[in-house]
């Protein structure tokens, strides 16, 4: 599913250049559940942005489901994000002015799904994360755990093969965290490829495999199950 080969990423701000990734080689097979760990500043967020096609590598090669992402135009990258990837962010990133339903519908809007179909699929996704009775609530009217569940519903509504979660429990209390972890586990059981970024070993413990980053390099890889 994911095939990174000697991927580097250098950020330039003025004359200063910072190497966030210094040659990462990583394969994730279809249906795998991988946790990416590491302290802050280790480059794990950059890795996720590249894997999520939000950014392109400075050098090296990245193939997603067999297609080389490095040579893609901006439009094609948007297309890949729309069809193959679902994102879950630490800060939820819901649009505060829209209802939970509209938030979940948003990826389908950009994927060109018609209105009736969109509504049906968004309602089903919200039902699946246990928020079938909260569809008309705005994010401000929901708890942190509920907001993250809305975000998960939004990530899975397009039925993507790959779900990327960046510190999904970072802003939640332990009970909400447990719910979110359970939900991600369910998605994995249903056959989706999951990449989870976290610095919490307990959260990483649910994955099949964990990789550890330090200073932009892969330092350890261990199978957990």
């Amino acid at each position: 599913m994911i095939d990174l080969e000697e991927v580097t990423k250098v950020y330039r701000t003025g004359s200063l250049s910072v190497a966030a990734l210094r040659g990462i080689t990583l394969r994730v097979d279809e249906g795998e559940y991988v946790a990416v760990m590491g302290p802050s500043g280790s480059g794990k967020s950059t890795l996720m942005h590249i894997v999520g096609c939000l950014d392109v590598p400075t050098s090296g090669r990245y193939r997603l489901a067999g297609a080389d992402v490095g040579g893609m135009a901006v439009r094609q990258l948007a297309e890949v994000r729309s069809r193959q990837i679902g994102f879950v962010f630490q800060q939820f990133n819901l649009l505060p002015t829209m209802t939970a339903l509209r938030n979940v519908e948003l990826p389908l809007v950009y994927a060109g799904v018609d209105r009736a179909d969109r509504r049906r699929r968004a309602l089903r996704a919200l039902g699946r994360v246990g928020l079938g009775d909260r569809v008309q609530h705005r994010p401000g009217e929901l708890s942190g755990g509920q907001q993250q569940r809305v975000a998960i519903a939004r990530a899975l509504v397009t039925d993507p093969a790959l779900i990327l979660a960046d510190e999904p429990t970072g802003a939640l209390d332990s009970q909400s965290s447990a719910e979110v972890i359970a939900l991600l586990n369910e998605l994995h059981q249903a056959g989706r490829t999951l990449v989870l970024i976290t610095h919490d070993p307990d959260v990483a413990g649910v994955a099949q495999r964990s990789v550890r980053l330090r200073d932009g390099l892969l330092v350890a890889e261990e199978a957990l199950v």
Partner: protein
Amino acid sequence: MSWFETLRTGLESVRTHRLRSSLTVLGIMIGIAAVILTVGLGQGAQNQVSSEITALGTNLLTISPGSSTSSAGIRQGLGSATTLSQADAAALASKVVAPDIKAVAPVISSGASLTDTANSNTWTTTVNGSTPAWATVRGRSVTQGRFIDRQDVTDHTAVAVLGSDTAAELFGPLDPVGQTVQVNGVPLSVIGVLNTVGSSSSSSSTGSDQDDQVVVPITTATERLFGTSSLSSILVQATSSGTLSAAYQEADTELLAMHQITSPTQADFTITSESSLVSTATSVDRTLTVLLGGIAGISLLVGGIGVMNIMLVSVTERIREIGLRKALGATPSLIRRQFLVEASVLGLAGGALGAVLAVVGSVVLPHATGYPVSLSGVAAGGALAIALTIGLVFGVYPASRAAHLPPIDALRSE
């Protein structure tokens, strides 16, 4: 994503940022209303001036002597020559010679001092010697007594018709009819008073006060008062406004023939029409309208830059939203479209409300200021088009800036 979806997304965003949206709309609204009203005021002033000039006498041509070239080759100015005679006037009055001329009034004018014989009040004004046709051509009537008639002209009667201001100056509250005034030492009995036309409106455009003058039979003027028979002017009324230029040609041709002049450039008379006065006044008003419209246009431009500013601020404060939308699969062109839709919705709403405000203003302003406002559909339609253009043009830059933000930079910003 369809245009309908884009429109829906744009409207949603306009609605959720109520304060910002309404301030933008307010700015455009005032600019558009100002443009429409300024143009309307200019148009209103133009209409007013033309109707005032029409009131001076309809379809009127004025023939003045002058522009003659003496035998020594010296060209003389307007009014200096003594080339117009009563025979000229009589010839123009012929239906055979000039079928498009309805009435002709020869006029001898001169300033003169009037004395009220009873009280010895004196007053200096213009004395016009003319015929009964003067009242028709000038569009005047008498409010007291009668106007001079054919018999007065034939008999050289010593009578005078006074303008209303002249009568008031000489006789105050007394009934002027039946009184006697002395003009250049000749006693004339007052037989009538002209209607009042309102001196302020007419004096501004003609240079003479239409309510302060005296009319006497032309024969009385030539033989008893002034001792000259050459005319100051001949007033010619065309049968309708459509035949004014035909009447002009007929008068021109006939007078050239009467004066035995072969080259029109050597003509010893000048024909002017009231319509040339109208066009002069209209062009002055048009200049004014363009000037005011320019000022209003600049304020509209400033309003447009305001819209751009607001859209740019909106881009900056919505970087996260833009980044998220891109992460969820929005292409740059969709983001651009969304911002363009937002900007043009704001522009159009401002334009429509501005048009409504202008209509309200066009009803209220004439009551408040006394100036007429005539709204035109073209101005309103144009203003709406301008508003939409402002929205689009000033939305383009912020929209393309928003579209090209990298999604991660956008998502990272807190």
